[in-house]
């Protein structure tokens, strides 16, 4: 029943994203209209893919650090991405892909640094060190970003922040293709790690005794989840909240086993973000809201409702 509802939500969300918009497209022209074909469809798909990637990444990271507050952006990624984006604009890097690529490189750089910190002194990705390292690296990157912004005399830098706050205004078939080519590998790695991740929930030592290669598992999960998030940053900026809430919603609805958690988190994240983006571009038309605001406004009450039901029962 819950799976049927989820499937219906996926279809309804994508249909709404294609049908609704500030431009008036007659129903008959829906498939021929460049507005639908070049704008609404790639935008809906991109929002869905990014939402899915963030949801899955959130499940992976929360399992890895065994902390319900973990968010894909917590481990320094948003700070690194911000630094990359500001560098691209401050130093006038050429090319249409300079900004997203630089944001991606920044996010991966921050991730590599936190990863290295997590391995220091044979610590083997201790959750506490990962969280602290993530916050520290993020703060360091943010400090350099702020220094660049205050020293470089470019009014354009303000726009780097607008971009970073996230959204799908720049969605195109190219960005959809980037996600479609890039996302499957980390997704497959994570889904393959579903069973050992269930064991990890018991604690590192028990998981080890039950046959999970904890060292390898943690490294793979960390790298896959972070690379997924970095790709999401490159095509859509930093969209918070989805990666934090979606894993919790899915755990409340479908239980704690990762082989159901990963696919349901992908679809739920996709639905949440695609629906939020449709609202963002229609409710205050002709203007547009930053999508992160809508995910929070829609997601938090929903989450509170689920939490209440869960704690009551």
């Amino acid at each position, binding site marked *: 029943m819950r799976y049927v509802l989820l499937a219906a939500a996926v279809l309804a969300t994508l249909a709404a994203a294609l049908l609704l918009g*500030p431009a008036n497209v007659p129903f008959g022209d829906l498939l021929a209209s460049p507005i639908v074909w070049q704008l609404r469809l*790639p935008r809906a798909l991109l929002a869905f893919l990014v939402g899915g990637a963030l949801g899955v990444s959130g499940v992976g990271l929360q399992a890895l650090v065994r902390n319900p507050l973990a968010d894909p952006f917590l481990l320094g990624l948003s700070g690194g991405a911000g630094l990359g984006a500001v560098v691209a604009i401050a130093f006038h890097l050429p090319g*249409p892909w300079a900004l997203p690529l630089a944001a991606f490189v920044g996010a991966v750089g921050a991730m590599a640094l936190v990863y290295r910190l997590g391995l220091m002194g044979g610590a083997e990705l201790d959750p506490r060190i990962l969280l602290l390292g993530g916050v520290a690296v993020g703060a360091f990157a943010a400090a350099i970003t702020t220094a660049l912004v205050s020293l470089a005399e470019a009014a354009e830098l303000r726009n780097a922040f607008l971009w970073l706050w996230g959204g799908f205004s*720049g*969605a195109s078939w190219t960005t959809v293709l980037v996600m479609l080519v890039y996302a499957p590998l980390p997704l497959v790695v994570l889904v393959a790690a579903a069973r050992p991740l269930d064991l990890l929930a018991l604690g590192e030592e028990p998981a080890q005794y039950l046959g999970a290669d904890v060292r390898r598992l943690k490294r793979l999960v960390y790298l896959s989840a972070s690379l997924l998030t970095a790709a999401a940053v490159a095509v859509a900026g930093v969209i918070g909240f989805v990666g934090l809430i979606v894993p919790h919603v899915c755990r409340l609805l479908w239980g704690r086993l990762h082989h159901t958690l990963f696919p349901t988190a992908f679809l739920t994240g996709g639905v949440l973000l695609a629906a939020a983006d449709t609202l963002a571009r229609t409710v205050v038309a002709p203007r547009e809201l930053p999508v992160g605001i809508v995910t929070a406004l829609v997601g938090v009450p929903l989450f509170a409702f689920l939490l209440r039901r869960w704690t009551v029962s």
Partner: protein
Amino acid sequence: MRRWAQRTHLAALLALAVAACARGEHVPVGGGIAVTDDVGRRVTLAAPARRIVSLLPSFTEILFAIGAGDRLVGRTTWCDYPPEALAVPSVGDGMPPSVEAVAARRPDLVVLYRSGPNVTAAEQLERLGIRTVLFDLNLLEQLGPAARRLGALTGHSRAADSLARVVDSLASLPPVPSTQSLAFLVWDNPPIVIGAGSYLDRLAALAGARNVFHDVGSPSAQVSIETIAARDPDFVAVLSDSASPEPPRYASRPEWRVVRAVRERRFVFLPGQLFGRPGPRAAEAIRDLRRRLEAAP
């Protein structure tokens, strides 16, 4: 008795003077100057300001236009017009102003744009005994009042009044019937456009071009590409400081080509120095925009 009265009289005067100094105010003597700025403060000067720091390009341009350019002892890095302004020492980008750099120019008047950080900076300067004025300057109709008051503060009232009359008459003109439409695109990702309640919206109306986002109340707003496509402007206007501007990079992307004006490369490039800020050359900007629209393909 008389001596006592004299002494108390003197003491009272002294007390008044001390109190006045403590408040950091100069008591206007004879033909003192007094204007009220846009935060409602009454600013008085004993004599026309001789050493002025201007912290907004528009103020710098107005001061030169009314013949008070030689009073400038400080400007921002953005103040690049008229060319003589570049000879004035810069005190930084002015966002927010470096109070120390401004004070080091030993000004007797600092002219600031009214914004949160600038109000704080003005308070700090006042505490150092430096007079400040804060003016709004976002719209065409704010040019005249700013020019008049700058004229009074510098003793160039006649030139300032005639400039103010020109811009006031521009501001009171009814919009010219529009034959063409345009959208001012400030940024592409996310797309930011100029709405009503802005200088550019007004310039476009006076140049006979309808801003397709005139219904958006705020000076600028984030919109979607789809909305721009649906509004279907004849032109996309872009501020550009380049001497030989090229179509923006996004122009060749498929998602932007849904917008007719982008697909047909109907871009109008507006020099930022003339269009990026309200200034005494508003009439020139309107003529220039008209000419560019007529010359466009």
